[in-house]
C-alpha cells in the first residue's frame, strides 16, 4: 500500500509541475500574440448580428462592429459635432424636407468595386424595409440616386435632424437581401476593416486595404466576448485584453493603480432617466412628481456610488447633445417634499412600482427607494429580466421606470423629439404645448433656433417632472499603454481604425 501511495503522489506531483510549466510558457507566448500589431478588445456588449438593418442592428454591440465594417454618410465626432464619412457635403431645402448629399469620390468596397449612389439608396431602402428600431427615425422617408455621386433623401415631414439621425445608417452594396446571412458571413463594406472571423466567442477584424481613409496600421483586431465584468478586468490586467470600458467606480482605483494602463473617464451621452408614469392616478399631478424628485438626495447618492463616473445632471439630455440647455437644479428638501405631497392629497398608502433591468443599477435604485421611504412613500423595487422589463416598459406596466438613456445621434431630436410627444405614449405624459415646441424644433433649419426650442421643451419636461433626471453618466476606459491612437467615445462606440501598437 505504501509504495502505491508514494508513487501516486509522486506521479501527481510531476504531472502537475509539467502541466504548469507547459502552461506557463504557452501563456507567455499567448500574451505576446496580442502584440505585433494585434489588438484584443474585451467586448462589453453582446454582438449576435452585424446586419445594420436587422432588428438588433441598432444595439450598441452590433453598432460598434458595424461601424468598423461599413461606412455611413455622416458620423458624429466625440465632441458632438457631425462630420462627413461617405458624404463630403450636404444641404437641405428651405423646408428641411429634401436633403441632398454629395458623395466622396473614389470610394471602393472591400471587394474592389466602386461605391455608387445607387448602393446608398438601395441600402437606405433595405434599412427602412427591414423596420429595425433605428428605421423608426425615418417614417416614410425615401432616398433616390439622381447621379452616381449624389443621393437625395426626402422626408415625410420637415426634419432638421436628418444628418445626425443618419449616423446610424450604414451603407452596404446593392443587392443585399432581407435575411441575407450568406452576405453577413462574408460581408463587403467600405469601412476601415474587413471581417475575418465571426464566431460565438470572438470577432476578428483585419484592415481593409481599399478603405478611403487608408488601411488601419494594426494587423488584426479581435473583439472577444466577455460577458462578465470580472473576466474583462482580469483579462485587461493579465494582458489578454488591451481595451476595456464601462469600468464601475468600485473597480476603478485598482485599474488606475496599474502602471501599464491608460485610464480615461469621458462624459457620455447617457443620462440616468427615471420616468414617472403620468397615467398612474397617484402620479398624474406634476406637483406630486416634483415633490418625489425633491425627496431624493441625488447629490449624496451620486457622490457615494459614482464618485468618478457620475455627476448631477442639469438637463434631460447630455451636455454634448445638440439641444442641451441647462435647467434649474431640483434641490433636495425632504420636508418641503412631504408638505407638497400632503398638500397635493397624495395617498401615502399607495405602493409605487419602480422597475429597472440590470443588476448594476440595484444600489442606485435602492438608495432612491430608501430616500422616498424616509418621507413615507412606499415603493416596491422591481429588478426585471431585460425581456420582461422591455415588455412592461412599452405596456406602461410600472409607476417609476429607471433607464440609462444614451443618444448616439447626439441630437435632442432622438430623445426629446422621439420620447416625449403625446403620440410616443412612453410615459403617460401628454402636453400639446410640448408637442408644438418639438415639431417646431424638428422643422427649423437654424441650429440656434433648434437649441432654443429644445431648451424650452426640456424646461417643460423638467418643471413638470415627467421624470427625474438625476445623473449624467461618464464612461471609464482603460487600455494598455502599448497602444496609441485610441480615443474613448461618449457612446461606447470607439473607432479602432487609428489604433497602433507600439513596440
Amino acid at each position, binding site marked *: *500500500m505504501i509504495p*502505491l501511495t508514494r508513487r501516486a503522489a509522486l506521479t501527481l506531483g510531476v504531472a502537475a509541475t509539467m502541466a504548469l510549466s507547459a502552461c506557463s510558457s504557452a501563456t507567455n507566448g499567448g500574451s505576446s500574440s496580442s502584440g505585433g500589431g494585434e489588438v484584443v478588445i474585451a467586448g462589453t456588449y453582446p454582438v449576435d448580428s452585424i446586419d445594420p438593418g436587422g432588428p438588433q442592428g441598432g*444595439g450598441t454591440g452590433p453598432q460598434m462592429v458595424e461601424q468598423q465594417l461599413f461606412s455611413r454618410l455622416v458620423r458624429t465626432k466625440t465632441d458632438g459635432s457631425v462630420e462627413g464619412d461617405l458624404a463630403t457635403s450636404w444641404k437641405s431645402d428651405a423646408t428641411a424636407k429634401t436633403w441632398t448629399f454629395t458623395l466622396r469620390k473614389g470610394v471602393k468596397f472591400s471587394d474592389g468595386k466602386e461605391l455608387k449612389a445607387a448602393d446608398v439608396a438601395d441600402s437606405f431602402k433595405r434599412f427602412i424595409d427591414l*423596420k429595425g428600431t433605428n428605421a423608426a427615425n425615418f417614417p416614410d422617408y425615401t432616398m433616390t440616386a439622381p447621379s452616381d455621386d449624389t443621393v437625395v433623401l426626402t422626408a415625410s415631414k420637415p426634419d432638421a435632424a436628418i444628418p445626425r439621425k443618419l449616423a446610424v445608417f450604414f451603407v452596404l452594396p446593392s443587392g443585399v437581401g432581407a435575411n441575407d446571412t450568406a452576405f453577413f458571413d462574408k460581408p463587403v463594406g467600405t469601412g476601415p476593416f474587413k471581417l475575418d472571423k465571426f464566431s460565438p466567442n470572438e470577432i476578428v477584424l483585419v484592415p481593409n486595404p481599399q478603405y478611403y481613409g487608408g488601411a488601419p496600421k494594426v494587423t488584426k483586431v479581435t473583439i472577444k466576448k466577455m460577458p*462578465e465584468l470580472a473576466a474583462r478586468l*482580469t483579462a485587461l490586467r493579465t494582458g489578454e485584453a488591451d481595451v476595456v470600458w464601462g469600468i464601475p467606480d468600485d473597480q476603478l482605483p485598482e485599474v488606475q493603480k496599474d502602471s501599464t494602463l491608460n485610464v480615461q473617464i469621458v462624459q457620455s451621452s447617457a443620462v440616468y432617466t427615471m420616468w414617472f408614469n403620468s397615467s398612474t392616478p397617484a402620479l398624474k399631478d406634476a406637483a406630486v412628481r416634483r415633490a418625489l424628485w425633491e425627496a431624493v438626495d441625488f447629490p449624496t447618492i451620486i457622490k457615494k456610488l459614482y464618485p468618478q463616473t457620475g455627476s448631477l445632471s442639469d438637463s434631460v439630455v447630455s451636455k454634448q447633445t445638440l439641444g442641451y440647455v441647462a435647467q434649474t437644479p431640483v434641490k433636495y428638501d425632504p420636508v418641503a417634499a412631504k408638505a407638497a405631497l400632503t398638500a397635493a392629497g397624495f395617498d401615502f398608502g399607495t405602493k409605487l412600482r419602480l422597475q429597472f433591468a440590470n443588476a448594476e443599477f440595484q444600489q442606485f435604485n435602492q438608495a432612491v427607494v430608501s430616500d422616498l421611504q424616509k418621507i413615507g412613500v412606499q415603493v416596491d423595487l422591481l429588478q426585471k429580466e*431585460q*425581456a420582461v422589463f422591455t415588455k412592461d416598459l*412599452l405596456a406602461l406596466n410600472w409607476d417609476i421606470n429607471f433607464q440609462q438613456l444614451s443618444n448616439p445621434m447626439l441630437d435632442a431630436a432622438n430623445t426629446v423629439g422621439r420620447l416625449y410627444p403625446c403620440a410616443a405614449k412612453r410615459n403617460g405624459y401628454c402636453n400639446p404645448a410640448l408637442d408644438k415646441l418639438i415639431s417646431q424644433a424638428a422643422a427649423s433649419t437654424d441650429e440656434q433656433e433648434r437649441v432654443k426650442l429644445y431648451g424650452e421643451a426640456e424646461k417643460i419636461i423638467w418643471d413638470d417632472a415627467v421624470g427625474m433626471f438625476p445623473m449624467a453618466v461618464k464612461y471609464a476606459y482603460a487600455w494598455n499603454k502599448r497602444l496609441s491612437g485610441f480615443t474613448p467615445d461618449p457612446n461606447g462606440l470607439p473607432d479602432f481604425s487609428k489604433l497602433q501598437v507600439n513596440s
Partner: protein
Amino acid sequence: MIRVVVKRLLIGVLVMWGAASLIFLIVRVAPGDPVSILLGPDATQDQVKELSASLGLQRPLAVQYVDYLGHAVRLDFGDSYRLGHPAMSEVLERLPATAELMLASTLIAVVLGLTLGLLAGGRPGSVVDRVVSAAAIALQSFPTFWIGIMLILVFALALRLLPSSGSGTPQHLILPAITMALPFTAIVARLTRTSVAETLREPYIQTAKSKGLTDRQVLLGHALRNSLLPVVTIVGLHMGGLMGGAVIVENVFSWPGLGSLVVDSVTNRDYEVVQAATFVIAGIVMLFNLAADLVYSQLDPRIRLEGS
C-alpha cells in the same frame, strides 16, 4: 441485449417528446418575449406588433405547437430569432466545445477521484483517508462559480500561468475543466472510498490475501473492479449535472459552448434555440444513462437488465 436497447430507445422517444413539449410550454409561459428583446426599449408598439406577427407569435398556442412538433420530428427547430441561422446548426456548432469540456472534466474527475478514493479507502481511518474525506466534503460544498473565480485569481491573475478566459488552445481548457471537475471529483472520491473500504472487508479479499497476494495486487486486481460499479452509475447519472455545471462554468470562462448558448438564448427568449438545445441535451442525458446501464451489466454479471 439488443431487445433491451431497442425497448429503451423506444421509451427514449417518448421521453424526448415529453422534453420537447415541456420546453415549448415553459419558454412561452415565462414572462417576456423575443420581440421585446429583439427590438429593445426604443421600439414602438407598432414595431412590436409587426415583428410579433412576422415571427408567428400571435398565432394560437396549439397551432404553434403542432407546427413546432411537425418540424421537430425532422430535427428542424426553425431559425434563431437572434442569430439568424438554423437553431439546430447553432446548437451543433457549440456542442463540440461543451463535449470537450465535459470529457476533460469527467476524465479528471474519474482519474483523480478513483485515485484519491483508492488511497483513502485502502486504509480507512488513516491520515490520507481523513485528508481526502475532508477535502472531498469541502469541494462539494463550494459553489462552482466560486471555484472558477478562485482558480482565475490564483492561476491567471497572480501566477500568470494560464489564460483567464476564452478558448482555442489546450491551455484555455485547463481552468474550466478543473472547475467543472472538482465537485465531481469529490463525489467520485467519496464513493470510491466507501466502496473500496467495504469491499476490502469481503471474505474473498481475505482469501486473496491468504493466497499471498500483495496489498497492491489485492486492491487493483480484486477490489477495484467491484468498487467501480457505483462509480460507473454516478458517472452516467451525473452527465445531466455536468450539463448544468457547464452553464455556469462557460459563463465564468467565456467558453463558447452549449451552456453559454442556452443562457444567452433563455435571457434573450430565443425560443427556437432553447428548444433545439433542450432536445439535444435531453438526448445526450438519455443516451448516457442507457450507456451506464449497459456498462453496469457488463461489469457485474449478476446484474441483468430488465427484459434481457
